[in-house]
């Protein structure tokens, strides 16, 4: 059923007719969404779309190339600050500033990729973690970037049209998200994508068959940083205001959680992970108001815990999800999806 007979079948973007059909349905649904949803729902989906972009970028690095990064909040910050600084100080239009910010972020990714060439495992984790912390510390001290006070996003203007509503921002963000997902899918099907996977599986073996490690490892960092930078640039406009505290270590950990919960080395997984984690983040922040769970937890808080600390339950839930996913389904949500699909396809056997 899934047998590939020639090379062109292997590099094709969409494998089958049903896939084309469902993709068309998804795109139509995404296009129709702002017409039926209210402002808060659109805001939620905007956040999700940005996190999808970042999760894709991080998954390229962690899932496809096998290099761990705990510093992606740094790239996120670089993207956001660079976009705003280019627009405020250099008076560039948004459509130029955003890709430029992406490339600035990619340059930093390249720089981080250089020491990463020699590091692995815990050493790489520490180096990237340090990078993320350093970037936000430095940004907080520079007056160009507003120091600890942060920066206000200028009004978003595209092709002479002012974008002020959530629906308007949706119209900017969602196409970018779709294009970048498409681009990543394309990338993973090419020689470059296969080289990344070869580096992940065994870097020494990859080098023996002619994959230039220096080139591909730094490239993976740069591409991943580009995606994250673009995500950061868009985030600045959704939030309307950024400060160094927007990009703390918890953000890096959440990005990693999205990738792991969704499924390493899978595009669909990144999307599912980003959707789930972002949605949970928004819902759990006001956990006391949720039906059923809310009153129980409030009562529990009064008895044993403190009521003021109740929002922190979200960390417990996230932690539990991360731990349980790794223990029971290392492939993440994508693994569930694959197993469900196989179950139905082979039913009743």
């Amino acid at each position, binding site marked *: 059923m899934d047998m590939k007979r020639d090379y062109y079948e292997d590099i094709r973007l969409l494998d089958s007719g049903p896939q084309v059909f469902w993709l068309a349905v998804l795109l139509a649904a995404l296009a129709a969404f702002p017409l039926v949803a209210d402002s808060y729902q659109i805001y939620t989906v905007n956040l999700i779309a940005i996190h999808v972009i970042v999760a894709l970028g991080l998954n390229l690095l962690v899932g496809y190339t096998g290099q*761990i990064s705990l510093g992606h909040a740094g790239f996120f910050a670089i993207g956001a600050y660079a976009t705003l600084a280019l627009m405020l100080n250099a008076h560039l239009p948004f459509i130029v500033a955003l890709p430029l910010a992406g490339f600035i972020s990619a340059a930093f990714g390249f720089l981080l990729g250089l020491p990463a060439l020699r590091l692995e495992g815990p050493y790489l984790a520490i*180096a990237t973690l340090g990078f993320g912390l350093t970037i936000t510390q430095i940004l907080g001290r520079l007056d160009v970037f507003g120091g600890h006070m942060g920066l206000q996003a200028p009004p978003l203007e595209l092709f002479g049209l002012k974008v002020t509503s959530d629906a308007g921002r949706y119209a900017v963000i969602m196409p970018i998200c779709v294009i970048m997902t498409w681009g990543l899918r394309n990338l993973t099907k090419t020689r470059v994508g296969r080289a990344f996977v070869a580096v992940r599986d065994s870097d020494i073996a990859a080098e023996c068959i002619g994959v230039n490690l220096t080139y591909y490892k730094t490239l993976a960092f740069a591409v991943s940083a580009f995606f994250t930078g673009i995500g950061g640039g868009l985030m600045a406009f959704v939030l309307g205001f950024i400060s160094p505290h927007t990009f703390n270590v918890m953000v890096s950990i959440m990005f990693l*959680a999205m990738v792991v919960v969704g499924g390493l080395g899978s595009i669909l997984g990144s999307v599912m992970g980003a959707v789930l984690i972002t949605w949970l983040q928004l819902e759990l922040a006001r956990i006391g108001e949720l039906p059923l769970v809310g009153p129980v937890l409030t009562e529990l808080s009064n008895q044993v815990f403190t009521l003021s600390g109740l929002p922190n339950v979200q960390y417990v839930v996230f932690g539990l999800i991360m*731990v349980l996913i*790794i223990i029971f389904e290392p492939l993440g949500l994508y693994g569930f999806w694959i197993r469900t699909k196989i179950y139905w396809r082979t039913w009743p056997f």
Partner: protein
Amino acid sequence: MLGQLITSGIAIGATYALMALAMVIIYKTSEVLNFAQGDMAMLSAFVAYMCLSTYGLGFAMSFTLALAFAFALGAFLEFAFLRRAKEPNVLGLIIITLGLEMMLYGLASWRWGSDQKDFPFPVSDFDVYQLGGDVVISQLNLVTLGVACALMILLFVFFRYTKVGVAMKATQQNQQAARLMGIRVGRIMMLTWGMSSVVGACAAFLIASTDTLDPNLMWTPQLKGFSAAVLGGMTSLVGAVLGGFILGVVENLFGGYVSVEFKAVVAFAVIVLILCVKPSGLFAKHYVRKV
């Protein structure tokens, strides 16, 4: 000026060294980078605080109870979560410890809120001793220094001369072979996590007494402890302690002579620079992997 900066750098370095020791104990046996270390220690400090202020127990009693709690917590986390992972890789284990870190942080800040509490401690930070010239060191710093050195020597002796310590080293080198030699690998791992948690808790008590106690207490010391451990090479106890001292001194000198603002960042710059030259840290052998 220089003497004082170095002295207080060493004193700060001692707490980093303790955290680094805790990291190294776990890494030595199971090759897990434990991100939950800091919050395990933070929770133990809160238990000590609860014993002291809510139940009004004495210092000796409270700290003993809290250390016992720390041991039980470490052993429990290993038994309940780490051991359950199926064929885990490095990334998977890091994610599990990150998840545990978030759970512990969430529980602690749910239970105690985020307001800062004064942590009572028998030794004061304000009684100082003259060390010749105008260099002073506080009682608390001396105690910290003493605890770090004592624990290092104790652990060194433990790993070198006791049967359990040797079994731990064997487990790190080759789990399968260790199991075949009759070592209960699972039990060794639990013991390791318990020990490491106790060392971390000692660091947390000392840090909480200079600072105030809140759920974010151990995040920075943990990162510094990580950096110190990486600097020392992750597997060497002496390396971890020296790494802690080096980091403390470098940080303080940088703060004193160059810029206070970027003091927090310099540790990571040092790490990245040193890792570029020696990818396995200063004091560990670099093993080249076979394919």
